[in-house]
C-alpha cells in the first residue's frame, strides 16, 4: 500500500462556476430569511398549529446527516477498518459543513434570529433543546480537533483517542436530536424513546448516502482514482443502514398501533393522511428504503456507480420525505385535549391542520444545503482533505485484484470481471 498523499482540489473555471451556483442558492436563502424576518412568519406556510415546517425539515436533515457523515471517519479510527482511514479528513470536513448548514437554517427560521447571542448565553439545562445547542457547538469543536490531530503529523498519536471521543459525541448528539421529538410527551406522534435510535439509524443512512454522492462527484470532477471495492463495500453498508431505518420505523409504528390511544395518529399517517401517507409509503418506505436496498444488493446494479449514486440519491430523497412526515405530519394531527370526545374551535381543535410550504421556506432550506456544500468545496480547495488516490490498491493493504468476488465497479454500469 502506497503512502497516502493529500492534496487540495484545483481551482479553475469548473470550481468557480460550481461556487457561483452555490452562491446563488445561498443568496436566495438569505433573501428568504430576510423576507421572513422582515414581514414575520405570516409569509410562510407555518401557523400556530404547524409551528415547525419546511425549514425544520431541511435543518434537521442537515444536522442528522452531519453526525452520520462522520461515521466514515469512525469506521477507520474506532472500528479499525484501514481502507476507510484516508477518507477520515473528508468525513470530518463534511460533518462540520452539514452541521453549520443545518444550524444556519435553524437560526434563520427563529422568530428572533437577532437573539442568537441569547441562545448561546442563556441555558435552561432541563431543556433537551438547550443541551442540543451545547452538543452542536461541542461537535464542531470535537470534529475540528479530530481534523487537527489527523492533519498535524506531530499530533497523530492522539488521533485514535479523539476519534473515539468524536464517535461517542456524535451518538449523544443524534440521541439529543431524536429526543427533541421523543420527549414531547403531549404529542401522540412523538413521545417515544425509539425516536433516539431511529434518528441514529437515519443519520448513518443519510450521512453515508451524502458522503457517497459527494465522494463520487468530487473524484469524478477532479479525475482522481476511486476504488471499486471501496465503493462496493460502502454501498453494501448503505443497504444495511437503510434497512436499519426501516426496522426502527416499523418498530415506531407497530408500538403505536398496539396502543389504542395512538390509533388516530397511526391511521392518519399510514392510511388517510393524503400527502403524508403518500410520502411515508412511496417516499420513505419504497423509494427511500426498499429500492435503494434492492439497488445495492441486486446483481444488475450492485456494483455499478450509477446504481450506487441512484441508491444514495433515493436515500436522501426518502430521508427528506421521512422528516417531512415526522415533523409536519406529526403536527398535522390534532392534540388530544378531551380523549374520546369530539372538539371544535376557532383554532381548528380536533381537525387536521393544513400546511403548504411557501417559497421562502424552501429557499431557506435549499440555501442551507448550498451553504453546507460551499463550506465543503472551499474547505477542499484551501486545505488538504482529499487523498490524491482512493484506488483500492492505494488504501487497502490486503487488496487483491478480483478478491471481491471478481467483480468491480464499472463507471459505465454493469459488471466487469
Amino acid at each position, binding site marked *: 500500500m502506497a503512502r497516502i498523499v493529500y492534496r487540495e482540489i484545483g481551482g479553475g473555471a469548473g470550481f468557480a462556476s460550481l461556487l457561483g451556483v452555490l452562491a446563488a442558492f445561498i443568496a436566495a436563502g438569505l433573501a428568504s430569511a430576510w423576507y421572513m424576518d422582515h414581514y414575520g412568519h405570516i409569509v410562510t406556510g407555518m401557523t400556530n398549529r404547524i409551528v415547525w415546517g419546511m425549514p425544520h425539515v431541511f435543518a434537521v436533515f442537515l444536522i442528522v446527516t452531519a453526525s452520520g457523515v462522520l461515521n466514515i471517519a469512525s469506521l477507520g479510527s474506532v472500528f479499525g477498518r484501514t481502507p476507510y482511514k484516508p477518507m477520515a479528513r473528508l468525513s470530518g470536513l463534511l460533518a462540520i459543513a452539514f452541521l453549520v448548514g443545518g444550524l444556519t437554517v435553524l437560526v434563520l427560521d427563529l422568530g428572533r434570529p437577532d437573539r442568537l447571542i441569547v441562545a448561546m448565553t442563556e441555558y435552561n439545562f432541563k431543556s433537551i433543546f438547550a443541551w442540543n445547542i451545547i452538543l452542536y457547538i461541542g461537535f464542531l469543536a470535537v470534529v475540528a480537533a479530530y481534523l487537527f490531530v489527523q492533519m498535524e503529523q506531530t499530533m497523530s498519536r492522539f488521533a485514535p483517542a479523539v476519534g473515539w471521543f468524536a464517535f461517542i459525541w456524535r451518538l449523544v448528539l443524534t440521541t439529543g436530536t431524536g429526543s427533541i421529538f421523543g420527549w414531547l410527551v403531549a404529542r401522540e406522534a412523538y413521545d417515544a424513546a425509539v425516536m433516539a435510535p431511529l434518528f441514529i439509524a437515519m443519520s448513518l443512512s443519510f450521512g453515508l448516502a451524502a458522503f457517497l454522492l459527494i465522494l463520487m462527484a468530487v473524484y469524478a470532477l477532479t479525475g482522481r482514482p476511486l476504488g471499486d471495492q471501496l465503493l462496493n463495500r460502502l454501498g453494501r453498508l448503505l443497504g444495511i443502514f437503510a434497512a436499519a431505518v426501516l426496522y426502527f420505523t416499523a418498530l415506531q409504528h407497530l408500538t403505536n398501533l398496539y396502543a389504542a390511544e395512538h390509533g388516530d395518529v397511526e391511521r392518519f399517517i399510514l392510511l388517510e393522511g393524503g400527502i403524508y401517507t403518500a410520502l411515508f409509503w412511496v417516499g420513505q418506505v419504497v423509494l427511500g428504503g426498499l429500492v435503494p436496498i434492492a439497488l445495492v444488493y441486486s446483481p444488475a446494479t450492485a456494483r455499478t456507480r450509477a446504481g450506487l449514486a441512484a441508491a444514495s440519491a433515493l436515500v436522501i430523497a426518502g430521508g427528506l420525505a421521512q422528516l417531512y412526515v415526522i415533523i409536519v405530519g406529526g403536527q398535522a394531527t390534532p392534540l388530544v*385535549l378531551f380523549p374520546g370526545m369530539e372538539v371544535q374551535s376557532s383554532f381548528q*381543535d380536533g381537525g387536521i391542520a393544513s400546511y403548504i410550504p411557501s417559497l421562502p421556506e424552501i429557499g431557506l432550506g435549499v440555501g442551507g444545503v448550498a451553504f453546507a456544500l460551499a463550506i465543503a468545496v472551499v474547505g477542499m480547495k484551501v486545505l488538504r482533505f482529499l487523498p490524491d488516490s482512493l484506488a483500492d490498491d492505494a488504501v487497502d493493504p490486503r487488496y487483491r485484484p478480483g478478491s471481491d468476488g471478481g467483480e468491480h465497479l464499472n463507471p459505465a454500469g454493469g459488471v466487469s470481471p
Partner: protein
Amino acid sequence: MTLTRPNPYIRPRSEAQGGPETGRRDVLRALAAGAGLALAPGVTLYAFGGPAEARPPGEPASAQVRWGLLIDVNKCADGCTKCVTACATENGWSDNGRPLTDAQWIRKVKVTDPRTKASKSVPMMCQHCAEPPCVDVCPTGASFKRADGIVLVDKHTCIGCRYCMMACPYNARSFIHEPVEDQKENVPRGKGVVESCTLCVHRVDAGRIPACVEACPAEDGGAMAFGDLNDPQSEISKRITKYASTRIRADLGTDPGVRYQNL
C-alpha cells in the same frame, strides 16, 4: 362596567396566612430580609401579615400563593365569547380573520360526546401548570413559572423557536406572525416571539382579577372564579372542596392551575 373591581377572591394576607409551616417560612423570610436586602421593607410587611392585597413593586411573587381558575362549564353559554373579547381588549391582541396565525390567548372549544351528541362550551387558555412542559423545554429559560404559579414568557429572552408550542398539551400558546401595533401599556408584545394567557398578571399584581373572569356574565357570580388555590379559605378553594372538578389532560401530570367543573 368598571375594570377596577377589587378581587373578591383574594383575602387580606393577615386572614389568609396561618399555621406553623407558614409561620416558620415567614420567620426565615424575615431573617433573610433583615440581612440588608433592599427589598426588606416590602418583605417584612408581607412576612408579618400586612394587609397588602396588591403586591408592592419590587416584592417578588410568593410561593405561598397558587393562583388558579375554576370554570363551571354548565354556566358557560355556547356562543358567548365575552371572556375572549375581554381578554383581547385587555391584552391588546385581536382577531384579524386569520385564526391559525392570529394570537388566541383564550378560545372557546366545543366539546361533544360522539355518542350522545351532548356538548359543552369550554374556555381554553394557558392552564398555568405546576409542572409546565413549556417551561421544561424552553432552551433559554424565557418560558418560566412565577413563584405564585403564573406561567409567563419573558419577551426579552424568547428567541422564537416555538419548541414550547410543540410541548404545550393545550395548544395554548401563540407565535406572533405579524408586526403588532397598538400595544397595551402593561402587556408588551412583539413579532417573532411566543405569548399566551398571563392570567392578567398585571391586574393580579395590582389586586384585581383577570379580565376574562370580570367579564363573564353568567349568573351566580359568573362561570369563572379566580383565586388562591393554596388558601383553604379562598372562595375558589371552598368551591373545589365542595364540588367535584377536573383538569384537562390530568393524566399528563402537569397539574394545571385551571380547573373545570361539570365537564
